[in-house]
C-alpha cells in the first residue's frame, strides 16, 4: 500500500534556512543541505524548500543551493518561491529538484500550470493554495503570502488546478496556520471530495495527534515547519506513532 507522507518545509533566504533551533547532532543548522540531510535521516518522506529571497538577481544563489541539496539528499524534494515561467521550472528541475511548487503566479497566470505539466509532466507541478474561510462558510484563495484576497473559491480553484494539469495540491489554511491547534480538517475533507490528485495539508500542526487527524481526514501528506525546526515533534517518533495508529508509514 502507498504510504502517507510527512514533509518538513524549509524557508531559505540568501541560501540559509530562516528558522531553526539548535539540534544536538548538527552544528550548521541554517545550512539547507545539512538540515535536509538531517530530516531525511529522521525519516522525512519528502522535503520542501521555499526561496523567500526577494531580489531576482539572487536567484542564482538559490539555484546553487538546489544543486547542493540534490547532490546530498536522496529523497524527493520540491522547490517553491519565485517560479514565474516555464524557464524557471526548467532551471530548478535541471538543478535536481523533483517537483516545483507554484502559488500566486498560478492565480495570475493559470496557463503556467498547463505549460509546466505539458513540458515536464504533471507529477512535478504542485499547485500551492493559501485559503481562508469567509463569512459565508466557504474558502477564499489568498495570494502574495496571504496578504491579498482574490475572492476566488479555493475548492473551485483546486479543482481547476487539477484540470489544468497540476499533479498535487498543497493546501495551506491561513486560519489554522501558526495557531498550532490542528490542521483545517473541514478544508481537507471538502477538497478530498472533489480532487483525484494527492492533497498535501499544511498549516496548524502543533502535536502528533494533529497529524493523525488530518491524514485520517483524507490528506495524502502532511506538511509542517516550526514543530520540526524547533524540535517540538521528532519525525521518527511521529511516524512510529502514526504507524501504531494504522496509518501506512514508511519507517526508517
Amino acid at each position, binding site marked *: *500500500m*502507498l*504510504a502517507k*507522507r510527512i514533509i518538513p518545509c524549509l524557508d531559505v533566504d540568501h541560501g540559509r534556512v530562516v528558522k531553526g533551533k539548535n539540534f544536538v547532532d548538527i552544528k550548521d543548522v541554517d545550512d539547507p543541505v545539512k538540515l535536509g540531510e538531517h530530516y*531525511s535521516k529522521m525519516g522525512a*518522506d519528502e522535503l520542501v524548500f521555499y526561496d523567500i529571497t526577494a531580489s531576482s538577481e539572487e536567484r542564482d544563489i538559490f539555484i546553487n543551493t538546489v544543486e547542493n541539496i*540534490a*547532490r*546530498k539528499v*536522496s*529523497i*524527493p524534494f520540491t522547490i517553491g518561491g519565485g517560479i514565474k515561467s516555464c524557464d524557471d521550472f526548467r532551471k530548478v*528541475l*535541471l538543478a*535536481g529538484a*523533483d517537483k516545483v511548487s507554484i502559488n500566486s503566479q498560478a492565480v495570475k497566470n493559470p496557463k503556467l500550470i498547463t505549460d509546466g505539466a505539458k513540458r*515536464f*509532466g*504533471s*507529477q512535478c507541478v504542485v499547485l500551492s493554495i493559501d485559503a481562508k474561510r469567509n463569512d459565508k462558510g466557504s474558502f477564499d484563495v489568498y495570494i502574495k503570502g496571504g496578504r491579498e484576497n482574490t475572492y476566488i473559491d479555493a475548492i473551485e480553484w483546486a479543482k481547476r488546478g487539477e484540470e489544468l494539469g497540476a*499533479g*498535487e495540491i498543497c493546501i495551506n489554511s491561513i486560519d489554522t496556520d501558526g495557531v498550532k491547534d490542528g490542521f483545517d480538517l473541514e478544508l481537507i475533507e471538502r477538497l478530498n471530495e472533489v480532487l*483525484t*490528485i*494527492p492533497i498535501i495539508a499544511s498549516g496548524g500542526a502543533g502535536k502528533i495527534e494533529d497529524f493523525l487527524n488530518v491524514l485520517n481526514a483524507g490528506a*495524502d*501528506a502532511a506538511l509542517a515547519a516550526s514543530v520540526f525546526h524547533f524540535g517540538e515533534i521528532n519525525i521518527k517518533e511521529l511516524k512510529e506513532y502514526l504507524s501504531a495508529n494504522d496509518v501506512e508509514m*514508511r519507517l*526508517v
Partner: protein
Amino acid sequence: MIGIIDYGVGNLKNVSGALDRLNVENIITDDILKLKKCEKLILPGVGAFMEGMKGLEERGLDLFLRKWVESGKYILGICLGMQLLFDKSYEMGECEGLKFIKGEIIKFSPDINLKIPHMGWNCLLKNNDDDILKNIGKDYVYFVHSFYASELNDENLIAYADYGVKVPAIVRNKNVIGMQFHPEKSDKIGKQLLINYLELR
C-alpha cells in the same frame, strides 16, 4: 565506469549523483564509443515513452543496446528507462519498445479508484528470489508513474508493489534489469538496490 545513457530525456543528473554518493565513477553520455567501454549501463529517464524511443533511435542507441544485451552485459532501466525495455507501450497510441523483456506498458485503470499518478513511497513485495534483492525486505521505495508493465512472464517479475493491481517494481530477464521506482530517490533502500546492481556478476 558506469555509463548513464543520455537520450534527450530529463533527470539524468540525479542518477549520476546517487552513484557519486557511492563513490562509483560514472559518465552521462550518448557517445556509443564511450558507452561501449563501460562496465555496466543505466538507462534512466522521466517522460513519455514515444519520445524516449525516438531519442534512442535518433542516436542509434537502440541498435547499440541490442548488441550490448546480446553480449550478456548488464543494463538497468529506471522508470521510463525500465518501461522502454518491454515489447510495447500504449501511452499515446501504440509504440514499440526495445523488446528485451516480454510485456507491455498500459495505463492504470480508473477502476482501481486510487489516485493517478501512483506517486509516493510504496512497499516492495517479493515475487522471485534474486541477487538484486540482497538485504532488501518489505521496504519502501519511491514511485512516480501513470503507466505500468503488464503481461509479464512470472519468472521476469522479481518484486511488485500493491496499488489496486500488482505493479511490477523490479523486473529481470537475465542481464536486463528494470526498476519502475526511483532508486536514486529511495534513500537507504535505493542505495542498497544500486549497490546490488553494481555487484551483479
